[in-house]
Each structure stands twice: as structure tokens, then as C-alpha cells.
């Protein structure tokens, strides 16, 4: 069958087209890179999610510098020690922000509205980040690494994990730390963020004694306007003012 010049015939069962259409349906550009948020996204607690990811960026960047020079570099150069310190403190910040983010989401019950996958990917990210950090501690090649590896091996061995995950094997732990586990953490974070973009930020609980729905006029005092949000708060998009509901709300605010 001939097709017009410049147009290729679209196969009926193209995997590529199926993936593209599925991806665009779940994450249209205005959802993936949203330029607006529901007006209830107005609290400092929202900032800890992006701070967790920002800390992870610093962790990976400083770890990359350390990797470029090799595992022994930071022990005998001032600049190496500086980057090791950046790596350490960004890891501490990453866990600090992540734990606050996690608690914040717990008290919002952020799994509501069929967002359980968002919670699950976040929780698994936290759990995978723990061995990612542990393998870093035992890759330090100092007394800390000696002590932690000889102590932590007992827990691993008792559960049979030590048979294939040997904390006293520097080469194996270094591989886990600079490649395998970071890839897992980053993949989980990407999945988590994509799910957040797809489902939107969880809406507030309905007020007690009401059956009003979030985002309806009744739930907002019948005015049809969003609540007055503080324009200087993070998560508010840099201080822009609230706008009224559009006729066809885009998906970034849709649960």
C-alpha cells in the first residue's frame, strides 16, 4: 500500500507507539513539568521532598568526583578530603530531609486517592538508601570501615545474606556503593517523582462533619476561589498569586 510522500506507514501493533502513547497519556508535558499547583500546596513541609532530591544530586556529584580519583585519593590530599566531607554531609542531609519528608507525608496520609504506589516507592527508596550508605561506610578504607564491616557482617551472616554480600570484601562493597545501589536509588526516585506527577499532590482531608469534596465550591466556603496561600512559601511556585479554577483543570493537580 502506498503512503503519501514524507509519511511512514504506522504499524498496527508498534511497541514504540504503544509506549509513547501510554507515556503521553500518563505524563503529558504540562503534567511532567507543571507550571501550577493546587492552591492547598502551601506549607513548608512540601519543601523537604525536593530538598531530598537536591541532596541526592549533591551526594552523586561529590561521589562522582571521589570516584574519578579513586578510593584512596581522599585520604592523602586536602582537596580529596574536602570532597569526602561534602559527600558525608550531603548524605546526612539526604537522610535528614528524607525522614522529614516521609513523616510529613505520613501525617498527610499521602497514600489516599489511590496514591499507594507513591508511598511504596518512597518507602522503598528510604530502605534501599540504607545499604547504599552502609556500603559507603565500609568502603572508606579507614578504621571506621574496619569496625563497621566486622560488626555488621554478623547481622548479614545470620540472615544468610553474607553468603553473597560480604561486607569485608572491599572490592565487592565498592562496586555496590558506586554503581549498583546508587542506580537502584536513582531509579526509585525517578519512579517516585513520575508517580507524584501522574497522581498529583494529595488533597487535604475533608473537614469533619462535612461531605464536601476537595476542590468544590462547598469545600472552599462557597466562594469558588481557592484558599489564600502565603505567597512566600516554598511549594507555592515562587510567590505567584492564586488563580481561579480553569474550565478544564490540567492533570498536575488531579489526583
Amino acid at each position, binding site marked *: 500500500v502506498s503512503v503519501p510522500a514524507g509519511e511512514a506507514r504506522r504499524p498496527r501493533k508498534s511497541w514504540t507507539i504503544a509506549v509513547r502513547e501510554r507515556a503521553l497519556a500518563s505524563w503529558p508535558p504540562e503534567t511532567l513539568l507543571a507550571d501550577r499547583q493546587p492552591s492547598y500546596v502551601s506549607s513548608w513541609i512540601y519543601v523537604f521532598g525536593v530538598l531530598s532530591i537536591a541532596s541526592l544530586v549533591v551526594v552523586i556529584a561529590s561521589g562522582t568526583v571521589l570516584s574519578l580519583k579513586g578510593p584512596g585519593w581522599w585520604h592523602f590530599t586536602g582537596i580529596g578530603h574536602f570532597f569526602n566531607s561534602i559527600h558525608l554531609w550531603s548524605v546526612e542531609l539526604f537522610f535528614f530531609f528524607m525522614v522529614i519528608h516521609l513523616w510529613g507525608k505520613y501525617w498527610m496520609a499521602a497514600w489516599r486517592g489511590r496514591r499507594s504506589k507513591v508511598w511504596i516507592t518512597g518507602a522503598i527508596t528510604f530502605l534501599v538508601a540504607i545499604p547504599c550508605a552502609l556500603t559507603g561506610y565500609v568502603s572508606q578504607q579507614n578504621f*571506621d570501615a574496619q569496625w563497621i564491616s*566486622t560488626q555488621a557482617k554478623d547481622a548479614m551472616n545470620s540472615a544468610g545474606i553474607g553468603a553473597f554480600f560480604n561486607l569485608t570484601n572491599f572490592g565487592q562493597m565498592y562496586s555496590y556503593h558506586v554503581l549498583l545501589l546508587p542506580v537502584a536509588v536513582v531509579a526509585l526516585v525517578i519512579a517516585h517523582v513520575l508517580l507524584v506527577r501522574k497522581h498529583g499532590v494529595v488533597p487535604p482531608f475533608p473537614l469533619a462533619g462535612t461531605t464536601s469534596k476537595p476542590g468544590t465550591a462547598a469545600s472552599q466556603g462557597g466562594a469558588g476561589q481557592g*484558599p489564600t496561600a502565603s505567597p512566600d512559601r516554598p511549594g507555592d511556585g*515562587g510567590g505567584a498569586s492564586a488563580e481561579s479554577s480553569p474550565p478544564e483543570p490540567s492533570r498536575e493537580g488531579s489526583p
Partner: protein
Amino acid sequence: VTRSERRRLEDEAARKWTGAYRSYDLVKEFCIAVGVALALAVVLTILFSSPDEKPSTIQQWSRSDPVDFVTTAVSELDSSSGTAGYGPPYNHNSDGQHMAFIHLQKWLGVSHPIDTAKDFVIAPLQAIPGQPALQGAISTYQSAPSKQQMAWTDAYTKALGNAKAGPGGAIIVTPGGSGPVPTMMSSLLSFAQGGGLDGALLTSKQFYQTDYTKPLLFMADGGLLSSRAQADHLLGNQWGMMNETGSFPGQTWLWLYTFWYQIKPFSTSANADILVMTVMGALSLALVLVPFIPGVRDIPRWIPLYKLIWRDYYRSAG
């Protein structure tokens, strides 16, 4: 909340938001957040730096505490050390830890075989050239019945109880009835003090080596690492799992993990590690499954901290 009520609330929370929107610059917020995280990390680095205590070596250990080194070496020779009796994944000398009928440590088998007498003592000594008296002592020891070997090592271990460090790194001991063991231990001590044992325990079939299991386990059987750890509040009963050398924050996210080791029955159990791993595994699974656990998923509704988070929204909604 009834099932139908829960379903209704789920539907409401999943519904498209039809209220007001605020403009929002995702990319700008992310860039600012990266800048803030980087600035915080740099400030903390400038203020506090990071710890880096030099590692211990067998050479350093044998020089600073030769009696402890030789005592440990004898325990490796007669298989009474912690590593010798550890079980899987190092040897079959015990079943390791278990919980009820679940013996994961035993079931996963010996993946890193270690014969402490051969690997930590005999083989390194056999590699020392030009010492016929030493090689004769090794032959005598190896050809003796195990009962005789045990009598020699017991006698020497008893003598080491009264031993002192002598000049030049040697030890002063009166080894009555110890057979060839004093000759072997004297050579092993000299070998270690010269740095030879550090290398010998790393040697494998290939030139390149990254597996420090043998030297680390040998050192961990002695007192050097634990005495340094105690000074740095890193022992298990000091909540050491979440501590760091010096005054630096360590893996503070392991606080719950190390907490269990402080209380009974974990603190007194021979199977503490597998018990704590099981508890933490269950709690980790519970964390992942919070949205599906009745009660746990309802606490945020019962204790309305959400009113603080969304106070602007509720104030506006009246």
C-alpha cells in the same frame, strides 16, 4: 470508618482537583533546592570536615600489644577463636544463628571458607623461607595427634596469661609443656611485626586483591579493634551502630536497628542478630505497606496534624 465510607473518601481524594491553582515554577524550585543543599553541605564541611582515623594493621597490633596478638594467634591455631567457631559462611564448626526452625545462616552454606589454623597460622609460617627450625616445629605440630596439639596450645595459652611484653617487641613467657608452639608463635610474631602477615593473609591465587576478609577477621578476633571502638563509643552496647568516630554523626538512621540490641531478649540472646534482622525486616515491610494496614493508616486522621499542614486551606474553607 466503614468500607463504603472509606471507598467514598478514596474516590474523593482521587478526583480531579477543580479548585483554585497557583502558579508554580518546578525547575526554578529544583535549582534553588540544589543550591541550598550544596551550600549547606559546604558550610558543614568547612565547619566540621569529616573523620578519617587510620586503619589498624596486623603489624601495628603485633607491635603495640604482642601478648594479645600471640594469644589470638594460638586461638586461631587450636580453633577456639570467634572466627574458628563461627560457622557459615566461613566454616562448618557451628550452625550459626537461627530463629525457631529457620536456619538461614546454615542453609546458605560456606561461601568464604576459612580454616583459621591453616589460613591464619600454618600457611603464613610455611611461606617464611630459610628457617629449618621453624619448619621442623610446624612438621612436629602437624604430625602430632589432635589431643597432643590441644595439650600444647592449652599449656601455652595458660602461660600467656602471665606473659608480658619484652624489649624489642618480644614477649616474656614461660612455656612449660607447649611443644613446638612457642617456636611457631615466636616466628609468627616476628613475621607480623615485620609486616609480612598483613600481606600473607591477603595473598590469593591472583595478583590483584580486594578481599580483606581474612586479615579483618583475624584482627577482629583480637582486642585491638574493640579497644579502639570502645574509646570511640562504637561498641554495640554503646549504640555504636549509629555512631561515628570522634563526635561526628554516623548512620543515625539506624537508631531503631541498634535500639533492639540494647533491650532483652535481644541483648542476651545468642541469636540476637537474626532476631533483630527479623524484627527490622517486619517493620520495614510494615513501613512499605502502611497504606494497607488498618489502624496505622488511620492515625493521621485520628491525630489531625494535617490541620496544621493545611491550615491555610481550612482557614479559607471556614
